[in-house]
């Protein structure tokens, strides 16, 4: 029956103008699709061209001798088994101090930013009166609009003396200072994503909990927060990724010494800051140059994995909540 219907309608004969219009529509659609390809192309080009410059480390015999994988990651002989001194008579290229420095600074910032971000998201999403919420949300998000170089500058000029006297540290620039300044940069990320996850929890959850006699706090803490948990975890993972890659704050506030020390008062050197500090003076094509690109590849992979994890979790929370709500 249906087939008969479609058969009985003959294809309309198109005028030349209409055919031209159809052609133009197709061209526009094709052009727009082509433009959409840019995002994918950019991501692919980034990894290809950063990796391409790093590849010399493995193909060039000279570079392989100076910066082999074992020299990068295993302890070396001598008084200091792990050193990052790529510009010296005998270059030392251990990446362990950079990993330790990055992790140390990132952990400090996460320890501060995660509770701050989640708590303020809870307040804004669950407890604040409507008008206050509409004011607080954009204001906290504005913190993300401050350039990181300004945060680094603020750490240098204002926070540094404060942190030094507060924690009785020897050095004005250290891991704690960098971590605290970094926390300022990632709090808005954690806040925004957590707040979105909390707001996505259906109202019926809250109403059911309150009707059973739970207090507002118990509802928020034991019902809404667990329901939004994957989204909040995603927020933390995103914040972690941002913290690992953040450059200017760490470069300006950490002191940049290649120490393998978990002491928070010591100065620290991060992966990103190392690229920023050394790329300016490096000889193009030298092992040191490839080494910096290699660090870039590492950073790209870390953040890529963290991003994928975070977006999977965010999707999961949305699916679960909208699925069970309907």
């Amino acid at each position, binding site marked *: 029956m249906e087939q008969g219907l479609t058969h009985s309608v003959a294809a309309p004969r198109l005028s030349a103008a209409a055919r031209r219009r159809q052609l133009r*529509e197709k061209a526009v659609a094709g052009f727009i699709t082509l433009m*959409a*390809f840019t995002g994918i192309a950019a991501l692919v080009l980034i990894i290809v061209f950063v990796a391409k410059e790093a590849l010399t480390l493995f193909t060039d015999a000279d570079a392989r001798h100076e910066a082999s994988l074992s020299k990068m990651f295993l302890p070396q002989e001598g008084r200091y088994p792990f050193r990052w001194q790529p510009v010296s008579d005998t270059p030392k290229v251990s990446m362990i101090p950079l990993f330790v420095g990055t992790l140390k600074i990132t952990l400090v910032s996460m320890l501060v930013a995660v509770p701050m971000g989640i708590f*303020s998201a809870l307040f804004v999403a669950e407890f604040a009166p409507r008008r206050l919420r509409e004011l607080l949300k954009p204001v906290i998000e*504005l913190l993300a609009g401050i350039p990181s170089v300004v945060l680094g500058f603020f750490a240098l000029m204002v926070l540094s003396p404060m942190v030094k006297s507060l924690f009785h540290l020897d050095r004005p620039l250290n891991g704690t200072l960098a971590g605290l300044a970094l926390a300022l940069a990632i709090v808005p990320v954690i806040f925004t994503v957590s707040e979105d996850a909390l707001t996505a929890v259906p109202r019926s959850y809250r109403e059911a909990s309150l009707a059973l006699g739970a207090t507002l706090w118990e509802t928020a803490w034991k019902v809404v927060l667990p329901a939004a948990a994957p989204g909040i975890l995603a927020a933390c993972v995103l914040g972690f990724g941002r913290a690992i*890659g953040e450059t200017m704050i760490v470069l300006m506030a950490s002191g940049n010494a290649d120490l393998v020390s978990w002491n928070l008062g010591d100065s620290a050197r991060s992966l990103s800051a190392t690229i920023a500090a050394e*790329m300016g003076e490096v000889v193009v094509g030298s092992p040191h140059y490839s080494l910096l690109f290699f660090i870039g590849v590492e950073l790209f992979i870390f953040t890529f994995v963290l991003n994928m994890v975070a977006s999977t979790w965010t999707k999961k929370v949305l699916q679960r909540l909208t699925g069970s709500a309907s």
Partner: protein
Amino acid sequence: MKYTTRRAVGLGLTGLTALAAFFIVGMLALILLDVARNGARHLSWAFLTQPPSDGMMAGGIFPAIFGTAALTLLMTLAVMPVGVLTAVYLHEYAPPESRFARWVRVAVVNLAGVPSIVFGLFGLGFFILFVGGNLDRLLGYEEMHWAQPSILWASLTLAVLTLPVVIVSTEEALRAVPLEQRTASLALGATQSQTLARVVLPGALPGILTGAVLAISRGAGEVAPILFTGAAYFLPDLPTQLNSQFMHLGYHTYVMATQSPNVTEASGPLYATVLVLLALTFALNLVAVIIRTRTRRKAASAH
């Protein structure tokens, strides 16, 4: 536990969350006030319009303001068409359940998470060495002409960095345009591209402009991607050609703050520079946030 004690504990913990929220607001206020107070002292018309002199201690920062403005202008010209059209594809043209559209979304999300310093490496490896190097060879330049750090390559690097910002904002703006307007236009016989150009895009214009403002604010403040793609600490001349280097407010701040022999002496012009940079990026952000909050409220009440 009695209900009253549970309530009291709850109220105390609620207070703690309020404290966290207001602490963040307090830090923001502290940063802004500190920069505004110390920066305003050194700010003058001459500071804004004169080149630096006497080893950056005297004179102004006009070349840095000019360089930042030129850089972000070029970046906006590059990123807006691509970003807006990508969002148009995702929201208007992509067939539902399209695998390509899903890949584009994944790429955009990941692009937003790539550290800014990696964008700097990308700019150096791709734009300067690969594109610039090949351009020089093709056009027959004997010495380096395009294969060197320049304002063009720096702005293109920033354009790639801000692409996700534009795409996300534009898509949000397209979503706010009611479906009825599209169907009405199509029902009147307009083609899809006519509907797009005369109905959908004008309707989404405020949101698209918000995206542009956010991208400019982000691009103007980023320093890591331009460290080795074009920024210079001191240049006597303004950048007049696409392949010249440029001074930049953020880079200026970084070098002055970390490499001045005497930071306390330099703190006057330094604070004033930061104030100008913040005024640029932060004011733009404020505008974007206000527009966005308003459109969101309007969209929420429309549904």
